[in-house]
């Protein structure tokens, strides 16, 4: 049968939507860009600001590779419209190291060999930064539960939990 998607059902708008200017603070830098309403924060970061450390994994909020911090909280940037984050403060993996020194989580992931292919790693680290800021995870079980939004298909989970425990203790 024919595709019955929404695009075929709804009468499309008569005029093309206009691009919208937005201002974001990304890793401490003031950024101004103009995006279409349907541009996700993930695409804005990668395609407009050339910050490709944030990864597009599933693009459906199921893998966590796109995790960034918005106003201090971890979110899935693939399900976030950039226009809805006007004025927000964004931290990506590129913004965690300071003055040439790795963030404690980055160092812990190296110390514990907490990745194999590395594709999920920037999302894992940003998510872990959010987890430490939340202060809700005390035990390894709680870290596992509150990190469940980040999938690692290489299965580096035991080392990821160990790395987060190390960074948490030193934070």
């Amino acid at each position: 049968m024919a595709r019955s998607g929404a695009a075929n059902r709804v009468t499309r708008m008569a005029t093309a939507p206009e691009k919208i200017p937005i201002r974001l603070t990304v890793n401490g830098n003031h950024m101004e860009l103009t995006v279409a309403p349907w541009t996700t924060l993930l695409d804005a970061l990668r395609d407009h600001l050339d910050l490709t450390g944030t990864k597009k994994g599933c693009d459906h909020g199921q893998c966590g590779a796109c995790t960034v911090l918005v106003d201090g909280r971890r979110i899935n940037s693939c399900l976030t419209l950039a226009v809805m984050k006007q004025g927000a403060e964004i931290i990506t993996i590129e913004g965690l190291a300071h003055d040439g020194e790795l963030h404690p989580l980055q160092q812990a992931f190296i110390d514990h060999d907490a990745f194999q292919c590395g594709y999920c790693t920037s999302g894992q680290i940003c998510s872990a930064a959010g987890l430490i800021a939340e202060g809700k995870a005390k035990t390894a079980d709680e870290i596992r539960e509150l990190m469940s939004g980040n999938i690692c298909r290489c299965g580096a989970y035991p080392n990821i939990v160990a790395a987060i425990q190390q960074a948490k203790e030193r934070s």
Partner: protein
Amino acid sequence: MIPFQYARANDVADAIKQIATDPSAKFIAGGTNLIDLIKYDVEGPSRLIDISHLPLRSVEPTSAGGVLIGAMVPNTDLAYHPLIEQRYPLLSRAILSGASQQLRNMASTGGNLLQRTRCFYYYDTATPCNKREPGSGCSAIDGVNRINAILGTSEACIATHPSDMCVALAALEATVHVAGPAGARTIAFADFHRLPGNTPQRDTNLEPDEIITAIELPPKGFSANYSYLKIRDRLSYAFALVSVAAALELDGDTIKEARLALGGVAHKPWRSTAAEAALLGQRTDAAAFAKAADWLLHGAKGYGHNNFKIGLARRAIIRTLGQAARGTPQSNSDKKIR
């Protein structure tokens, strides 16, 4: 993604005005479900009206002794709010058993009620689905229906409602506050979501030009004897195959009041007055729990792949009532079911 226009609503009145002028517009709050549906071409709004900045973010005690939760309160904030953790821990546990922390940070309280089913065929635009395309047929009834409903189904639709939060809100008998062109009104939680019947495209009794402004919890929180047990294919970050919210008020080991709601088995959180009445005056033992389970699952029907849900739900109900009676609610991080 397909193109749409974007506008921000300044206040609730402005949001109502904006949606009235454009029948193919949609509100967006957390966006965790709607953006995904747009990416899959299941939803195709001409315009998104951003309500995420509306001042509906407070959690406050009411003069009636309950709590009023603003529709824009993020799921995480609600789950960790001291009033909710202390007085309505069932709600807190249910919220934290759903999705991931990233999604809970994004998702709003009102939006959680309005999320759509995760039935595979609803998402697959190459297949018929009465919810997505009324009159096209249901692919799940004779299809891969392992995740689908066993209660309250119709020939048109066997989809389930995916929320965990709503299962707890049903058990707690919350009230939904909505506003529209005709003014404000309240809807009892049991009347908010609909069974599929012949109109599976309508999930709720919220009118298209109305907006959820708040959820009200009644005074009774069952904070001593409650449990939320969620059974799923992974230990975390998966939708429920079956979930149970149980809340008891006890006098010694005699049941004075009981609330019981199921998730993952129907088009709405599933309750039964007969099941709850069957527990009144009973001792907290497995025989009484089994009787209540049979009442709650009365009329349950499998569609092949999901037949297992009937037995699974029965055992989960008995187990959850036991946890509630003992005052040892299911932990979200220690996955052992005791």
